[in-house]
Every structure is written in structure tokens, then in C-alpha cells.
């Protein structure tokens, strides 16, 4: 099932399938790119940032940014 990263639930995992063009370069440095597995750690309340683990590295990103990343959720 495809979901935006911003809509994923706690502890869900998946593979990145798409990142909007304008964001690709910015998140590249964090190791977030198409084909990478990620795990949702937590989301802060009131439109706060989401916290994900990609390849053992934890990254926190704003909700709008997370809305531009599409993930195929596996579990």
C-alpha cells in the first residue's frame, strides 16, 4: 500500500518509491532516496516533524517535506 511519509503510522516500515523533484537533492544527503527502506519512529503532535530511520540513521523532517515523499508500506 502506498502512503505519503507524512501519513505513515508509528512503527510502520516501507520502501521509498517517490520523492518530489525539488526535494530530492535536499534529502539525498540524509540518505533518503527512492528504493531505500525506512521505518517510522514517531510523529510530533500539532503538525510537528516526523522522525524516521533510514539505514540505521535517524532523521527528523518537517511535515510538509514528508508529504512530498511516497512510501510503499510493507508492515
Amino acid at each position, binding site marked *: 500500500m502506498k502512503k505519503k511519509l507524512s501519513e505513515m503510522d508509528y512503527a510502520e516500515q516501507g520502501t521509498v518509491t517517490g520523492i518530489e523533484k525539488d526535494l*530530492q*537533492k*535536499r*534529502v*539525498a544527503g*540524509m540518505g533518503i*532516496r527512492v*528504493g531505500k527502506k525506512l521505518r517510522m*519512529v*514517531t510523529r*510530533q*503532535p*500539532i*503538525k*510537528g*516533524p516526523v*522522525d524516521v530511520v533510514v*539505514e*540505521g*540513521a*535517524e*532523521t*527528523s*523532517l*518537517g*511535515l*510538509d*517535506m514528508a508529504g512530498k515523499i511516497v512510501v510503499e508500506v510493507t508492515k
Partner: protein
Amino acid sequence: MKLSTGERWDLIDKISKETVTFGAYKHTLKDAIGELTVKPMTGIPVAIAIMYGFWSVFGSFAGFFTDGFFVRLFDAYWLPWLQEVFPGQGGWIYAIMVDAGGIESGEFVLSSNCLESFGVLTSGLFVAIGVVLPAIIIFYLMLALLEDIGYMPRLAVLLDTVLHRVGLHGYAIVPTILSLGCNVPGVTATRILETKKQRFIMMTLLAIFIPCGAQIGIMQDVVPDLMGWILLYLIIGYFVFGYILNKIVPGKAPEFLIDVPPYRRPLLSNIGKKVGGRVKGFFVVAIPFVLLGCAIVGVLYQLGVIRFLGDALAPVFVGWFGVPKETAGPLIAAFLRKDLAVAQLSAITMTPYQMITAVVLVSIYFPCVATFAMMLKEGWKELLGALAVLSVVVFTYGGLIHLIGILLGVA
């Protein structure tokens, strides 16, 4: 030759496949703690507990050394001894270096403690070494622990939502916390923010509303009961004026994208080096300024400049801000060192609410000279902008605090 982002990743994937094997990943205790401290349900209580712990340790450590040791040393031995052996009692050099004294029923009397004496060798040394030194040692020790354990990025995640309201984002907590030690590195740390707008807002808020460790240390010593009010006014100011600045400063306030490193066990050697380095910096840079500030204010008193300024500005001080006109002296000292200014305020007779207002004014009215220089280095346009905001803030906020006092019936 340059590759596109996609080509580069393809190549890296290929290389990684050849050279790296990712074994089964075991979740460790560190990871578990890491996640608990970033999830809101558990993370927010932990953050509050850590901040509270920080505060209590700070207060009791600094209090222990200052009240338990330095106050006695300075007031019972150092001051009387200097008053005795320093030549020229009553003369102006004596007044500046040792004790300006006071006039009681027409007679010159010596001061009974180091806060009232205003001398370079008494007040100056006492403030610098007796009060501020223990405060910054414990502050920097705890700061170094927070830094090296890796807590700051997690605090940033938890506070992101709030800081967004003021045009910043969670990572603004790094310059903010560094500023609580000393505004100078705080100003430099604004470089980790993405846009000019964010850096400007951050730098302005730091310079106005964040008291440095030295200042907090002395406040804790001379006005411990009023601390809550003073800090509350400063925090409210930080958010209210941040909110306004966010609305009026043009530019973008991009979202937050940070790396959250794993927790690490702090290395004692590194903690020692950091605290040592910062304390050494205090001796080399800050102490001379405290002494110099003391001397300058002393000279200005002797020349009558401060009395003149106080009288000339009395309508502003008394009418608008609701503080005694003697506040003029400490405000001049505040340009050099805020800790010294607070110490001098404590020797002036006023009501508790006037004291709150006066200390808040000392905090917000002008960055100390070291911060000023660092802001200039980061860009004179930003500095001018920040000073413009500052003058507006001092008048409106200072007046407002007075008004609140009047409404509460305490001013």
C-alpha cells in the same frame, strides 16, 4: 566529469553492494532510549525533567560555593582587609578600587559587603570569581554533558512545533541553549539556520531575550526570589516578539530537516577539555571586562556623570519604566557586562517589582560588548536591524511590564 544525483546513487549502490554487508541489526538499549526520548508521550516529560534537573543542580551548586564560601571569604576577610590597608580612604582612587562607601547622617561610612562597595577589587572580583565563576563552571559542565550525550537534536525535534510559530524551527534550540552559556557562541551558531530571515530573527531574539550564564548566576545569587518572574518575562518576550518578527520580516522560514545522532557515552577527557577551555576563556575575556566595567562606572560616578544621566533621564526611568533613576549606573555597566550590572542593581534600594523590571531591562536593553562585536562580524546590516528592533522592544516591553505592575497594584 560530474554525475547527476540519480547516476551518483546508482554508482554508490553498486559499490556498496560489492563492499558492504549489512548484518542483522540488533536493537540496543541506546536505540530504545533514543526513541523514548523523541516520542512525544515519553519525550516531553523527560525533557521537562532534564530541564528541571539542570536548573536545580545549577542553583544548588552555585549557591553552595557562593553563599557557603565566597561570600564569607570576600565580606568577612577580603573587604575589611582591603578597606584597612588600601591607602587614601575617602579619596577617589580608593572609591573606585575598594569602596565608594556611603554617606550616613553626613558622615562617610564604609560598606559592609562586596555588592555595595562598588570597588574594582571588591565588587569586581567578588562578582567575577565569587558568583559568576561557580555558576559558569556548573553550567558548562552540564551543557557539555547534554552536548556529548547527544540530547540536543532530540530536544530540537520535540520543540520544533513551538519554534515554528516564531519563524524558526527546532534546531534554533542549539543557538538558544548555547546563548544561555554565553551569547557570543550563540550568535555564531545561528549559521546552522537556513535563511537570512531565520538567522536575523534568531540573532535578534538571542541578543534581546536570552540572559547569559554569568547573568543567570548573579541573578540566582542576588534576587533568587524574583528569578521566576524575570525568566517568565524574558520567555514571554522571546515568543511574543518572535511571533511579531516572523510576521514582519520578509523571507522564507523553511522546515526542519536534521540528523538525529545516536546517544553516546560522553568522554570524560572531552568534557574536561571543553569545560576547561570555556572557563579559561572566561578568565581571559570576561574577568577583565568585569573589572573594566567596574572601573568605568566608578569613574563616571566620581565625575557625577551618572547622577547627571539619572536626573536627565528620570522621566523615562521613573515615569515610563517605573524604576529608580539610579538604574542609570547599572545600565551603563550592562554594556560591558550584564552580570556586573545586575550586581550593581542589587545594591540600589527599590521594591521587588521595580527590581524585576530593572533586571529585565538590563537583560533586554543592549547586547554586551562581546556579543555586539560578534554580531557585527556576522553582518552589519543584521546588527543594525537587530538594534532597531531592540530599541522598539525596550520601550514597548519595558513600558508594558510597568503597566502590568500598575494593574496588579505592585508597581
